[in-house]
């Protein structure tokens, strides 16, 4: 009984999933945070150029991608909830569908971002155009790579769910992958207004 109480207390002290993923999440936050602050302070050197360059971005694409990522995160939350609360057979069916939806959303995000990158290259804009676009490409491509890795993780979660490897008491792997995917979303929440809107 004491061991059980101790275990319950420990679970409340640590975030969901494997703690290693939280170390990664905190490191990622630090890295992106430095880039965000670097972008904001670099802008001070040439505010007009940053504002003019920002106008060349398609804010609507940023909006759609934000909605897509938030919805994808919501689908992952619903998949975890299904595994935790529903009967195994129904849980697997629903969680699979939610995860497929999340992957679909992730795929659409990548396609829209690719279209933005290609569009910019066709306009002759690249990393060396100016400091704004240097930050734009570094930040969004770095984030793009995280979404790509997140998609691989979501696919793994999907196959494990399909195999019935997650149950209401054993779903640590699912929570670990879900936490990573939410981190990708969390970072975009700051990246979107900073790059596309603030001036």
């Amino acid at each position, binding site marked *: 009984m004491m061991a059980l109480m101790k275990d319950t207390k420990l679970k409340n*002290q640590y*975030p969901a999933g494997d703690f290693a993923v939280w170390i990664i999440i905190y490191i990622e936050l630090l890295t992106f*945070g430095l880039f965000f*602050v670097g972008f904001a302070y670099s*802008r001070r050197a040439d505010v007009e150029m940053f504002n003019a360059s920002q106008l060349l971005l398609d804010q609507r694409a940023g909006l759609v991608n934000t*909605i897509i990522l938030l919805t994808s995160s919501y689908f992952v939350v*619903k998949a975890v909830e299904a595994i935790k609360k529903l009967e195994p057979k129904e849980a697997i069916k629903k969680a699979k569908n939610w995860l497929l939806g999340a992957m679909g959303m992730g795929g659409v995000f990548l396609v829209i971002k690719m279209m933005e990158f290609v569009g910019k290259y066709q306009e002759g804009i690249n990393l060396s155009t100016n400091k704004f676009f240097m930050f734009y490409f570094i930040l969004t491509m770095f984030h793009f790579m995280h979404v790509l890795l997140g998609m691989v993780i979501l696919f793994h979660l999907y196959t494990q769910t399909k195999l019935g490897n997650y149950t209401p008491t054993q779903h640590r792997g699912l*929570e670990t992958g879900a936490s990573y995917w939410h981190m990708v979303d969390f970072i975009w929440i700051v990246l979107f207004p900073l790059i596309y809107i603030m001036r």
Partner: protein
Amino acid sequence: MDNFTKNWLLLMLLTLFAFGLGWLKLLSLWSFALLLFTTFIKGHIIADYFMGLKEIKGKYRLIPTIWLFITLTLVALAYYVPIK
């Protein structure tokens, strides 16, 4: 409607609000502050409800919130503290 759905809808509304500010070019000092505040709220919702940190006591819950606060404060200072 469950809590996750309510939070997702709130995230959608805040996102549309932020986009509206930029689209209509309503970026005065106050709307800039509002934009930062809604970004903070959105991040907080994701950390607390989607990542499940609301159920966690102590520093692990606070890290994303502190990160948001410091990052957004430094961005605000960079944008609005006059250049000498």
